[in-house]
């Protein structure tokens, strides 16, 4: 299926948000996630299915003012 990850189109077979992170080598990374503009807490990623057209955001700590 085709989804958008951090604004970039991506083809994936990952059935869940957790599986997508593993596919992207971010399974153990310090990241937070949102699906279709809504926050998905880390414990819920494995139970969050992905569907064609989904928009995923993956963020990490960064410098800020």
């Amino acid at each position, binding site marked *: 299926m085709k989804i958008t990850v951090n*604004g970039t189109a991506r083809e994936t077979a990952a059935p869940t948000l957790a599986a997508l992170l593993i596919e992207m080598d*971010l399974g153990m990374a310090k990241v937070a996630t*949102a699906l279709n503009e809504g*926050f998905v*807490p880390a414990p819920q990623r494995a139970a969050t299915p992905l569907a064609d057209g989904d928009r995923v*955001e993956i*963020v990490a*700590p960064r*410098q800020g003012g």
Partner: protein
Amino acid sequence: MPVFYETEVTSRLMLGTAQYPSPAILADAFRRSGAGIATVSVRREAGGERAGQAFWEMIRALGVHVLPNTAGCHSVREAVTTAQMARELFETNWIKLEVIGHADTLQPDPFGLVEAARILTDEGFEVFPYCTEDLVLCERLVAAGCRVLMPWGAPIGTGLGLNNIYGLRSLRAHFPDLPLVIDAGLGLPSQAAHAMELGYDAVLLNTAVARAGDPAAMAEGFARALEAGRLAFEADPMEPRDMAAPSTPVFGRAKL
């Protein structure tokens, strides 16, 4: 020292972590200034780089309180989702809430700010709203649950200092017991001292320090100015007057 949501901090300086020439200089700025709070952000993580992990470990090593922001958010939804992600990443209920209303001035959107503050407070966040010095807005933010207010001195990154002294003084008078922080717009330590002289509790800086030729020295300069300004405030300054008044006694002057 100021108390933010039951947490007493060790410094009146809150320092941003962006735009420094290097991580070592950033750490030096914190060390020399004694800043007690570091502001941080969340941004997209590219696959596998793990830049976030390295940054997080560096910030933790500073041993200061961490205040995540929602910088760059222009809608309530963006700000709320960003805050939720930041809470999970940084493991704190503190959030510096920015809902930007204007692209040129980066002026807060007062309507979105109040709405987002209410939602986040209901979710257990401890909100530090980046706001203007508008008294009515600040009253609404307090009604929404904010127990800190962070009015701008001037637009972010301008270094113009305190643009509305009357408004800031008025805010201090209306909220005598609420921690007030000047957030944004400061460029020089003298402006930070002025904020202290007005009775403000702290200032939040980033560009003024990070973009200085010697950021660590500038950070220390700000720290000293904050101390001087606060001492002056606590010392109960004299009232200004229009007419001259001789300081040397007139009585006993020789007739020549």
